[in-house]
């Protein structure tokens, strides 16, 4: 079969830490196939693809594109060779429209210098229609959901006529339905002869979409397999060197369960928009249970997170904590009243990347760490080191947290929030971008908190996650509660069923509370 890409003996070392991210990798991509590049965080997958895309240089090895040896020195060269990459973090200008983002760099012109904005819209609309995407070229990127933004990224590449497309963890930010839509588009593309590489560590997706799977671990390549010949357990074993399955024991609400957080008919309005972001939302989070909120993005999960975090005020309704009114008291007050909260955006909100680990640990800390009125650095460092050890996080108290890996940053955030929790804790997208081992760790922490009697609120667009660990599930659709499931009902729920509620196709009657 014809090879689209052939990489031989690629070696790449990061000079900053002498880490050999790619160690003699041999990699090939067939024309028209979907190939998954699998591995844990830090296995060197992204590095390999950055080398292919011209974003990183390599010390050793050769790259052949469609049989010809090439020196890919920049993304521009890669584009010219028909290689495109969709990054994990979107490279989109929020204030520009879809079309303007897509055509950037190869804008259609009129009179030689002017930007033909209309033509850009029509060209991009054509491309969108051609690939059956659901966006429109003249939409402002700012107003798009994450799934739609990803479509923009893909269209951006397809518009450049790439026939080798690299997608870096494309599903981390997508909902179940968006993933389905994405996968069907990707299959369409493969059918038309495009060759695709998906970087991922999600086993189910590998099985669902790929023709072949390449597994990497710690900078080395372990092998290339036909997907039909391997199963999830085998891949997982290869990726981690051992087999892990995600399972968490569920708990039932007992008579001892106390209401901790009660939301009574909360409504959030946005100026200039008719439809409220949240409307008459009622729920109670009880001690000793994990309450999961599911929903397609843009349906109020983010707003609920912001309300619970105290970032935006509610227009109407009341929030009670242990019976005390905590409506609209602001983050600082909420924190003082016992809010523990792991935010979805761990890099912008959950941590301060330039600050040291210990400075990240003591934010809003109720313990004073003070001696004679000053912060006692030694006590802080000791506390931080204790936590790093307890949560088996690699790093030192003094290093800037931004130099840690994503998984370790999340562990630091978890450590901080879990240590300070009093009776309830909010988790939003807690395993976003984490590998299986780290996700398992997070779930275990959540379960143990629950078992200790905490009211755990989980907000997640990841259905697997919701179904795996929630004791009770509430589905949000267009800012309102459309369904809730308790106990066995929640456990036996199928993804398809819950998906119908999330899409607003089905709605529960008033009997469910």
């Amino acid at each position: 079969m014809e090879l689209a890409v052939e990489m031989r003996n690629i070696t790449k070392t990061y000079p900053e830490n002498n880490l050999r991210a790619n160690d003699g990798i041999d990699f090939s991509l067939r024309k028209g196939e979907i190939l998954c590049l699998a591995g844990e965080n830090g296995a060197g997958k992204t590095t390999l693809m950055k080398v292919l895309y011209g974003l990183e240089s390599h010390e050793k090895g050769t790259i052949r594109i469609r049989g010809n040896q090439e020196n890919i020195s920049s993304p521009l060269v890669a584009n010219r060779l028909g290689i495109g990459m969709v990054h994990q973090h979107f490279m989109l200008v929020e204030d520009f429209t879809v079309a303007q983002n897509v055509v950037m760099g190869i804008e259609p012109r009129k009179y030689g210098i002017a930007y033909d904005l209309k033509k850009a819209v029509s060209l991009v609309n054509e491309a969108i229609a051609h690939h059956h995407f659901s966006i429109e070229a003249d939409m402002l990127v700012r107003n798009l959901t994450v799934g739609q933004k990803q479509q923009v990224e893909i269209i951006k590449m397809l518009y450049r006529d790439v026939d080798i497309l690299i997608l870096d963890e494309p599903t981390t930010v997508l909902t179940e339905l968006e993933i389905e839509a994405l996968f069907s588009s990707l299959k369409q593309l493969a059918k038309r002869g495009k060759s695709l590489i998906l970087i991922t560590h999600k086993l189910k997706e590998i099985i669902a979409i790929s023709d072949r799977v390449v597994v990497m671990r710690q900078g080395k390549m372990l092998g290339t397999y036909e997907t039909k010949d391997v199963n999830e357990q085998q891949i997982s074993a290869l990726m981690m060197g051992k087999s892990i399955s995600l399972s968490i024991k569920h708990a039932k609400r007992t008579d001892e369960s106390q209401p901790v957080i009660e939301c009574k008919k909360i409504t959030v309005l946005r100026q200039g928009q008719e439809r409220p972001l949240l409307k008459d939302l009622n729920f109670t989070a009880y001690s000793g249970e994990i309450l999961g909120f599911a929903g397609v993005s843009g349906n109020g999960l983010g707003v609920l997170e912001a309300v619970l975090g105290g970032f935006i005020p509610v227009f109407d309704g009341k929030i009670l904590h242990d019976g005390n009114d905590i409506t609209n008291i602001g983050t600082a007050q909420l924190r003082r009243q016992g809010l523990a909260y792991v935010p979805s955006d761990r890099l912008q909100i959950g941590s301060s990347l330039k600050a040291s680990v210990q400075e990240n640990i003591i934010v809003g800390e109720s313990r004073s760490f003070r001696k004679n009125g000053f912060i006692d650095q030694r006590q802080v460092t000791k506390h931080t080191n204790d936590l790093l050890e307890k949560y088996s996080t690699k790093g030192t108290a003094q290093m800037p947290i931004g130099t840690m890996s994503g998984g370790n940053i999340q562990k630091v955030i978890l450590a901080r929030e879990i240590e300070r929790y009093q009776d309830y804790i909010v988790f939003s997208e807690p395993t976003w971008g984490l590998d299986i081992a780290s996700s398992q760790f997070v779930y275990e922490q959540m379960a143990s908190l629950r078992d200790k009697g905490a009211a755990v609120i989980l907000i997640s667009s990841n259905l697997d996650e919701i179904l795996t660990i929630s004791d009770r599930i509430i589905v949000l659709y267009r800012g309102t509660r459309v369904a809730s499931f308790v106990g066995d009902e929640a456990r036996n729920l199928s993804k398809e069923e819950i998906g119908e509620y999330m899409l607003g196709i089905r709605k529960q009657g008033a009997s469910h509370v």
Partner: protein
Amino acid sequence: MSEKRNPTSKNAFPTLKESIGSLLIVLIALSGVIILSFLLSKTPSKTLRYFFLGPLQNAYYFGNMLNGAIPLIFGGLGISLAMRSGNFNLGGEGQIYSGALATTLFALYLAPLGVVGAILALFIGAFVAGGLAGLSGYLRMKWDTSELITSFLISNAVVLVVNYLIAGPFMDPSTSLIATRKIPESFRLPVLLPPSSLSTALFFALVAVIIVHIYLYKTKSGYQLRMTGLNSRFAKYGGINTRKFIVLPMFLSGFLYGLGGGFAIYGTYFSSIKEFSAGMGWNGLAVALIAKNKPSMVIPAALFFSYIEAGARSAMLHSDVTFEIAAIVQSIVFFLISSEVLFTLFEKKRRYS
């Protein structure tokens, strides 16, 4: 994404490394000065001798150089505080000027109170200046008005108002200088290095550096201020009242400028002379930027700045250099001093070796 990094690869002595890097830049900058003086002066060697050694020539020049660093230290600290919190204070000129005037006027009024009066007047001056800067902070907190621009505009207006007050209602009729009356002898700080004008204000400046350092790194409020500056969304999430840390750092920034003005009066000028502080605000800003907003680095940065100024002045006094040439030389030093790349080049070299 980010690969695992080996934490031990971080240099154990970042401060040592950084200070060596700064030293290198200073050396390169000064070499630039040497080249320039050969180009611009008819007696380059004489010019250079006075430029480099002039400030160290005798106690008088040396003392005046140190004295020149005092307001720069206060200004540099003030700007550092504001920048650390993510705010920009472009109003140093007006703040230092108004602080000095308020200190002078209250020192005259409170003369009977002795030391208490002196301290009181100093703080009133600092509060006035702090209030002006704090106003910019308040506007940003309230309506998100750019504090960079408002502090600049307020300062420009305030300078004019202070000019009016000095030349108008508070002018000392007994002198031909456009200045207020002189503060009582008992309020003047002792001279350290006669005949230079270096006064004990220097110690207060050093104390201010220590206090600001302790505040930023050892107190909860300082910690919260830095967190707000590094990432205000994180700070808010962590329960820090970020709105407070828009107004407070601006206030403190102006407060320090005001103190700088006050100490300039107590130590050097003894009366508010019209436009006496012109340029001090901007120079304080440059000092803070050179010091990369680190309080401890403000001292060497201010000394360096003052040394360059004193050197230029000395070259002007003793050779054919005019102050326009001195300005050109200073600008070249500025250009080079802030080149991050010289740091990084140097760091990379170390890494690979």
